[in-house]
């Protein structure tokens, strides 16, 4: 079954596709055209390999075939002479150096992959378009798979991708890796796309079940790829660490009925040790990169550190709450937010007792920014319950139940109100 030649060709193509598109776009300057050329090369492989056998270096074969097709297409369209020459020279060079084709192809591939990532996540595109194009070009997901994952009709996704490609052409987006200040800004956009893909798979309450882990895995893989392409950037390792660590809890985070299980109630033996180890290694790489640039940890690294505090604790009571309080402090300093402050209150409650946590929450309650945030009364109720102030606790849980729009959350709050007595 696994030795079926058709399957083998499909597998080779899936592995090589992003690299093909990345390299071809350097020549064609158009991701749409490159995607078609890659597909053409694949069709040729499907025709020829069953007859001639799978070539000894299938990756190089596909690349060469696709580049030849690019040349043909250019000839037909009689595009600018300069580009034509460039391509012709590349092809001649490759044909003259047959023995180590793959090394020659590898040389530029890193830069091309980076260019492709930055193009797919370009700010001229809407966030939905960035996600769809990234999954299509770099993840190799079909439009149907993307549609299923995001529960939108397939034609919508197909159109989104077509429009995105058109926008890239119309706005004359240059196929390049941004420099200097722009690099940092553009990286943030790329991180957002990767995290959005991950979160869609991880937190989604809808969409087809089997697609969700695939989205998470694809986001994680893209993160790992980017971490190798831009290892100097601390936040990419922070992002990878965050996803590895969150992914490590994938199997433990819902019960058999699909209900979410709170972190402290999860069965820690179901946490994936391999991913935890990788997450902790990524955190170490992030700190190394920070040290080299004399930079302070960014938000992804800090969030990864939070996840790591839980990952390192074999039992909930082993959690290093002091460290968690400190990390929330650092996050607050980076981007002050009442929601982070509320989380810090929870951590302080765990570290120093419910009274200390309650004081922070009460101070927050006086501000109006969280007045519609149901977790504020929920947290307050929890702290009051721990202080055995049952009546007040019940009222807070009831208030939280009224505030949330989510049925499941409401049920949990009502239950806690009843339990408060």
């Amino acid at each position, binding site marked *: 079954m*696994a030795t079926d030649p058709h*399957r083998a060709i499909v*597998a080779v193509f899936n592995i090589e596709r992003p690299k093909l598109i990345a390299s071809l776009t350097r020549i064609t300057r158009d991701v749409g055209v490159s995607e078609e050329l890659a597909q053409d090369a694949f069709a040729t492989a499907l025709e020829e390999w069953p007859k001639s056998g799978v070539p000894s270096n299938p990756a190089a074969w596909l690349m060469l075939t696709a580049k030849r097709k690019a040349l043909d297409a250019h000839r037909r369209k009689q595009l600018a002479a300069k580009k034509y020459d460039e391509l012709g020279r590349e092809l001649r060079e490759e044909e003259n150096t047959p023995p180590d084709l793959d090394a020659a192809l590898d040389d530029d591939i*890193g830069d091309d992959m980076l260019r492709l990532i930055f193009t797919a996540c370009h700010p001229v595109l809407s966030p939905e378009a960035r996600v769809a194009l990234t999954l299509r070009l770099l993840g190799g997901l079909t439009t149907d798979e993307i549609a299923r994952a995001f529960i939108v009709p397939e034609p919508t996704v197909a159109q989104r991708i077509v429009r995105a490609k058109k926008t890239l052409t119309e706005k004359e987006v240059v196929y390049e890796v941004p420099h200097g200040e722009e690099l940092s800004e553009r990286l943030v956009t790329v991180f957002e796309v990767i995290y959005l893909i991950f979160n869609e798979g991880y937190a989604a309450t809808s969409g087809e079940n089997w697609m969700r882990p695939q989205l998470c895995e694809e986001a*994680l893989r893209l993160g790992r790829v980017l971490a*190798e392409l831009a290892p100097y950037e601390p936040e990419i390792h922070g992002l990878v660490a965050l996803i590895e660590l969150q992914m490590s809890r994938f*199997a433990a985070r819902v019960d058999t009925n699909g209900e979410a299980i709170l972190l402290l109630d999860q*069965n820690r033996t*179901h946490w994936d040790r391999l991913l935890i180890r990788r997450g902790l290694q990524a955190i170490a790489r992030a700190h190394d990169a920070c040290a080299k640039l004399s930079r302070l940890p960014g938000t992804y690294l800090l969030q990864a550190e939070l996840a790591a505090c839980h990952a390192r604790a074999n039992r909930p009571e082993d959690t290093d709450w002091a460290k968690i309080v400190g990390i929330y402090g650092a996050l607050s300093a980076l981007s002050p937010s009442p929601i982070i402050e509320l989380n810090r209150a929870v951590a302080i409650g765990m570290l120093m007792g419910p009274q200390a946590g309650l004081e922070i929450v009460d101070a927050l309650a006086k501000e109006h920014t969280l007045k519609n945030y149901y977790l504020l009364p929920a947290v307050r109720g929890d702290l009051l319950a721990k202080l055995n102030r049952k009546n007040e606790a019940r009222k807070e849980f009831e208030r939280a139940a009224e505030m949330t729009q989510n049925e499941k959350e409401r049920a949990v709050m009502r239950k806690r109100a009843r339990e408060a007595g």
Partner: protein
Amino acid sequence: MRFMVIVKASKDSEAGVMPSQELLIAMGKFNEEMVKAGIMLAGDGLQSSAKGARIKFEGDKRTVVDGPFAETKELVAGFWMIQVKSLAEAIEWMKRCPNPHNDGGELEIRQVFELSDFEPGEGIRIHEKVGEEMKKQK
């Protein structure tokens, strides 16, 4: 899908002969390629079985047998853990692996069970109970 790729042992690996410089470089390049593609989760080489041991079970009885072990071709000399989309992809990746031994190598690709592969049953319940017990321990 997660796969374990098992590198079978050879006479050399069992004799504790270190791989040649060329092989180390080729292996390094191959590993790098898998890391760059974001698919390699872990991988290590194992020392010869002379430095290992076996535990044999018979009912409640356990007998420890020291290495080395005779059936070289069945022994394991190393492994990778990779994350790919299908067995076919795992095969295509591993066909690119340099021959791990001078005297003829063999790789075995096996899919890893994930918790979701198990139907809810007694085994899973026991597994979950272990977690609950761990939580109770102070």
